[in-house]
């Protein structure tokens, strides 16, 4: 291994990627590259050396001057050097951006909490602007006392806070037929994890007095999609939350400000945003998003419905296409695991495409229905590897291989693809998205 070979930076990685994209984008990239070369990022783009004025033994310029004062940015924003940590979408997935999805940059994130501005977005009729003073939540149907709540009303109830992931069931769904995306953000980014605060749905149901025939709840949003899903009473009484805050502040508009339903561990679509109405009934409603969509077509032509749970899943986040390795030496294989059924119990890592496995360490908080970090320190000798991770949750469920999943579900069920993912580490440290047969 040559000594001059440095770890490839994110910018270099992107430069490599640019050779794979249409020429107009490539031109844009090259143009920007020229611009960067006059600035601080010059070294990253050209692979040359950094300006040395701020490096030891010199005293950096920021030490010999003053910074900005308090409240120069009343609501703080990330460092300008982190401009690459943003949500992204795959434009060809949907007809336009109002009914579409974006992905969280999980390749850049640390720990288990997703910052509010980076939580993935999914809209069916756009993110609406709701005045909280004019917003109401109505609960009616098979109840003794139908009620309307203002936001002030909802916030008078005792609040609960939980840390749970939120995942679109289509996460990974672009890869049922084969590997398509050379980026972790696009293969697994339809997931985020926040601290959610609100009132337990069971508390509100006690307040209205659900009649004994009441077995289902229709949750309906105030957006132009009138998003509606049928929720079984068992879930409502278990851990469903009426959420008005995330990570310590009021919900972001993208997340349903001022109030949403949140069903821990369940497909994100059931956590209806801009929640305006809950109707208690004796049967499900079979609305569009639980018949035409969010049902799983099986090879025999029949379909699963009410497939709510997000089964155990995991992925290695470093290395990944956006986070390649450089020269041989010590690295941490790191990643995220999660299960909609409970806590992550084990994560195992394979470097040989699943022939042998070794247990990884779970680090930080290990919470039920939350993102969980795993880690395996590794000394790389520069040889090509087939990296995989496999999670086991506390129900004993073991994350399946892609072959096992396809044998049962075929390739057309769109949702709930939670199979073991494979990154091919090449001897140059670059990562390719591959699938194994």
């Amino acid at each position, binding site marked *: 291994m040559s000594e001059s070979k440095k770890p490839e930076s994110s910018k270099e990685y992107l430069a490599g990627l640019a050779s794979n*994209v249409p020429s107009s984008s490539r031109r844009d990239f090259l143009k*920007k590259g020229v611009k960067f070369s006059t600035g601080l990022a010059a070294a990253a783009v050209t692979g040359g050396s950094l300006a040395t004025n701020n490096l030891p033994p010199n005293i950096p310029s920021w030490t010999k001057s003053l910074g900005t004062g308090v409240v120069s940015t009343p609501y703080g924003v990330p460092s300008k050097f982190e401009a690459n940590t943003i949500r992204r979408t795959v434009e060809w997935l*949907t007809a336009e951006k109002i009914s579409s999805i974006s992905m969280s940059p999980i390749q850049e994130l640390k720990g288990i909490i997703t910052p509010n501005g980076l939580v993935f977005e999914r809209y069916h009729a756009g993110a609406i602007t709701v005045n909280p003073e004019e917003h109401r939540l109505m609960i009616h149907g098979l109840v003794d006392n139908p*009620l309307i*709540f203002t936001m002030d009303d909802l916030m008078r109830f005792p609040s609960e806070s939980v840390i749970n992931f939120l995942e679109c069931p289509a996460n990974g769904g672009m890869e049922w037929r084969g590997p398509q*995306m050379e980026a972790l953000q696009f293969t697994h980014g339809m997931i985020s994890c926040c601290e959610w605060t609100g009132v337990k749905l069971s508390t509100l149901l006690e307040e209205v007095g659900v009649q004994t025939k009441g077995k289902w709840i229709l949750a309906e949003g105030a957006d*132009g999609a*009138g998003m509606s899903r049928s929720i079984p009473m068992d879930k409502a009484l278990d851990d469903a939350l009426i959420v008005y805050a995330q990570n310590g502040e009021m919900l972001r508009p993208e997340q349903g400000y001022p109030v949403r339903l949140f069903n821990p561990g369940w497909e994100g679509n059931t956590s209806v945003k801009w929640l305006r109405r809950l109707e208690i009934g004796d049967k499900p409603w079979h609305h569009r998003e639980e018949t035409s969509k969010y049902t799983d077509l099986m090879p025999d032509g029949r379909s699963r419905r009410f497939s709510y749970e997000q089964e155990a899943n995991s992925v290695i986040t470093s290395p990944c296409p956006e986070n390649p390795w450089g020269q041989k030496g010590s690295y941490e294989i790191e990643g995220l695991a999660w299960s909609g059924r409970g806590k992550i119990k084990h994560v195992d890592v394979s470097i040989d495409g699943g*022939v042998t496995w070794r247990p990884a360490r779970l680090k930080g908080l290990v919470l039920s229905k939350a993102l969980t970090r795993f880690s395996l320190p590794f000394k790389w000798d520069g040889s090509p590897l087939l990296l995989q991770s496999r999670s086991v949750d506390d129900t004993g469920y073991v994350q399946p291989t892609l072959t*096992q999943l396809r044998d049962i579900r075929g390739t057309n069920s769109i949702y709930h693809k939670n199979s073991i993912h494979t990154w091919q580490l090449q001897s140059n440290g670059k990562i390719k998205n591959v699938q194994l047969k």
Partner: protein
Amino acid sequence: MFSLNKLFPVFALVAISFLPVAALAADTGHYGIGTTATAKEIAGWDIDVRPDGKGLPKGEGSVAQGEPMYEAKCASCHGSFGEGEDRWPPLAGGEGSLTEDRPEKTVGSYWPYASTLWDYINRAMPFTAPQSLTPHEVYAISAYVLYLNDLVEDDFVLTQSNLASVKMPNVDNFYIDNRPDTNNKRCMKDCKDPSKIVIIKSLSGITPDQNEDSAEAAAEKPKLSESAIAGKATYTTSCLVCHGSGVAGAPTLDDKESWNKRLEQGVDTVVKHAIKGFMGESGMMPPKGGNLSLSDQQVKDAVQYMLEAQ
């Protein structure tokens, strides 16, 4: 005695009205927060419809009445025959395709209940003007979509009482989630034969470029007029759907040639066509883009935005 008899019942009533409330608060955890929803308030928001027809308002609509409504409000995205324009969903066709390599999931081939069609059109369509249709329009358009799928005859009239009896072909092919359906084991060594591993690589060139610098790009754009700034919101919510993707022959913002051709008639004519609707050689513009709740000024501003933002 007289006075006691009069007073006693009053006293008793007071006692009755206080005690149970106190008992409720202690026993069932009622907080007494919220306001009773009136029947009128509930009726205004209770729009959902179930497969058994519960929730349908009085009304009816025929296939024949639905055809022109569909053409005006639905066809620009879903196609005249329900075939779907661009990436917008097809509504018809696909019978027998669910076991094929590329299944086509449409109302006729996939949807289990006709009530879902009525409910969805009523709550979310047309895409640019949700919850703007009358019950009569929803019945008529639903009837027409059923007709496009050969599920009803051309003289069919859909009503509050017959909707639940429209049987959809795929109704019996759904079942409740029966996962977990895999049974992987936590094998630690010799889990497979390494010589049999085949590596499948990704398609090249379809991963989006991640080197975004949108702030810089935005800064380079020329400043917009006040009218255009005012029109941007309308454009985003009502026009972008077609003018962003070019569906139904709509000129996209970067299609300077098409816009210049239209501008030969003058800006006023372009605005007039946007407000009143227009059927051109290469495309169809529904009045106000199908969102009749927009004011003329809003449409004018949106046109201005589209002209300046190119």
